[in-house]
């Protein structure tokens, strides 16, 4: 029976939703004022939110959900009984443009199951991107998932049209990958990432003659790790992130709490990890990217290598390193202010700018919408000293959420 376009859209977006990445930023600014076509890119806009709390920024679909790989965590693995479907490249192009014109989306995030061979799949995806750019003068965002083992020539062409390329490492450890995705190899994935990094770096350089190098994925590359499907601890996950950020200059590492899928493989755990765990990993990731923390500091506090689920990682770190506090609100260096629980990047910038002109008191922070309750054990200033508060044995008790009685029925 022939499936309608709507049926296939339902199947192929359902199959793509387990990839958490949806960002449409980081590719600089451009628009269609000069090209008279369609589309622009700036900071990334989320056009809708679904009740799972995730945003819809890009049309996230698969070209096909047929796949010759058999990765245990994946809904599209070859041993799964989900219904299969495929789009033609023209259908994907049409959907992207029509959705874009109605301002539903920022662009396209195209991925695919692997059919026939890696190169065959990759070349179809590249064709979609090429025609969008060249035939339709589309200047919106394009994110392509690269297929492991695709040829370097295809990868290079993909970079010409795409804003971001990504390849998923899937499992935090090589052991996990070998167990769950027997056809994927950590070495090949890393190799592919390394190759992309070389391309991206080269595109930022000028050529010998001083001209600009051809564009290559200006939005950089990202990846995703599945959390909670195997035994990896948060420390394993974050140390893996650390090497990805520093070794391959990734823009983003996404953490996707393993989520139950229809027709799941028998080797997967039945119970998903708490969503809070994923949230804590993202908080840790933010501390690394914007707050000057090292991942090793964040995970040093607990011997089991897991992040504290009750407290956010910054607060947990501050409680474990109380000797460094309290600090002087008016004199402490910016790097230390960033480490105070309750102060975000914006409020720290505002504090640093304002204290050049005035002495700040604790009440002033309330005007910056900072939680006084949270920051006051860690700061001192004119009119406030935490005194005994900072030395209390049970400081932690002030912050952990109050216990709640379980529902009786």
């Amino acid at each position: 029976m022939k499936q309608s376009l709507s049926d296939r859209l339902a199947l192929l977006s359902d199959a793509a939703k387990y990839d958490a990445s949806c960002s449409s930023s980081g590719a600089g600014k451009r628009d269609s004022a000069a090209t008279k076509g369609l589309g622009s890119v700036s900071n990334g806009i989320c056009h809708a939110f679904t009740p799972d709390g995730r945003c819809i920024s890009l049309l996230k679909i698969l070209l096909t959900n047929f796949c010759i790989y058999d990765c245990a965590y994946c809904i599209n693995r070859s041993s799964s009984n989900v219904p299969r479907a495929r789009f033609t490249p023209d259908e994907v192009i049409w959907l992207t443009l029509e959705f874009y014109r109605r301002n539903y989306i920022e662009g396209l995030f195209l991925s695919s199951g692997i059919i026939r061979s890696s190169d065959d799949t990759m070349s179809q995806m590249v064709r979609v991107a090429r025609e969008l750019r060249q035939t339709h003068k589309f200047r919106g965002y394009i994110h392509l998932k690269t297929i492991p083992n695709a040829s370097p020539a295809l990868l290079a062409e993909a970079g010409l049209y795409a804003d971001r390329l990504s390849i998923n490492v899937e499992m935090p450890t090589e052991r996990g990958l070998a167990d769950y995705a027997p056809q994927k190899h950590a070495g090949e994935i890393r190799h592919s990432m390394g190759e992309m990094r070389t391309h991206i770096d080269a595109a930022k350089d000028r050529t010998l003659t001083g001209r600009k190098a051809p564009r290559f994925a200006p939005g950089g590359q990202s990846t995703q790790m599945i959390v909670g499907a195997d035994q990896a601890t948060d420390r394993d996950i974050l140390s893996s992130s650390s090497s990805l950020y520093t070794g391959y200059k990734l823009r983003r590492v996404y953490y996707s709490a393993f989520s139950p899928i229809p027709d799941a493989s028998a080797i997967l755990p039945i119970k998903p990890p708490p969503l809070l765990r994923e949230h804590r990993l993202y908080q840790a990731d933010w501390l690394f990217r914007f707050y000057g923390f090292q991942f090793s500091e964040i995970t040093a506090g607990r011997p089991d290598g897991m992040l504290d689920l009750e407290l956010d990682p910054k607060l947990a770190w501050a409680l474990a390193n109380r000797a460094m506090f309290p600090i002087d609100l008016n004199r402490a260096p910016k790097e230390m202010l960033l480490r105070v629980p309750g102060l975000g990047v914006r409020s720290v910038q505002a504090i640093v700018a304002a204290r050049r002109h005035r002495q700040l008191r604790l009440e002033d922070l309330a005007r910056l919408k900072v939680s006084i309750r949270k920051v006051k054990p860690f700061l001192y200033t004119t009119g406030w000293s935490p005194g005994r508060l900072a030395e209390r044995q049970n400081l932690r008790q002030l912050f952990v959420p109050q216990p709640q009685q379980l529902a009786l029925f």
Partner: protein
Amino acid sequence: MAYGFILDDHTSFSAWRPLARQCFLADRAPEEIEWRCASAETTLFDTPLVAPTPKNGAQPPVLRSKCLALLRSILRHADQTRFALAYRILWRAQTEPALASIATDPDIARALHMHKQVREDTHKMTAYVRFREHGEAQNGRRSFYAWFEPDHYVLPSVAPFFSKRFVDMDWVILTPKGSLAWNGETCAFSPTPCAKPKLSDDIDQLWKTYYVSTFNPARIKTKAMLSEMPRKYWKNLPETQLIPQMLADAPARVAAMAAQQPRPAPAFHHRLQQRRADVENQKGTDSALREVHRQSPK
């Protein structure tokens, strides 16, 4: 009799600026000037307002660019007290030039809060406007209409975004605070309030299909959704009417996934495995043969 002006609700920075300058050149302190909105309720104690006369030889006000940008932004806000706040900041900034950098100052804190709301409103407008196609394409250009209800007077500031993005189509955005129209060359802004039109588009159905399918029923985070997409936007978004049903169906879908027993793999999986095994065997045979060749004496 008091000094001041009666202003239209939508008075923008460029219209307010000469008035503020006039007050400043007349050396009138913020407390002496009343900025009254035309739509504000008249009270018994309302006095007629006269414009202050500038003094000869008075020095014009000087503002740092950061402060100017802040005033420009808060004058897009719908709060009717924005004129008085802006003038007070202008007045104070003459003796405290760095004023706009002091986020802890009560006036600046309030202005920054308003600035944040305006920025948010602008951003949400770029996100939640939904174009609906209208009629047949003419001369190769398709035409689209949209209805949106912004909280603040942000139309002129979102105009560049839309006219640089949707260049190859004609579009009109109607709002209760005016309209924007693009014809491929110019973007026309009109402050005349518009009524909500009746719009429909068949592609909405595909979009709804996508919206429902991309939702993962195993992770419900309605708080996260609502903080980014507050209910006030729901009435103009085609997809949000599906949310109650999606939430109602979610527990049953998750339970069904958990209850499902592993099923035997489809036939094509077995064929794939077979082929892979054949290839492995072939490789094994090949390498064994090579080994034999290598070891065999020439």
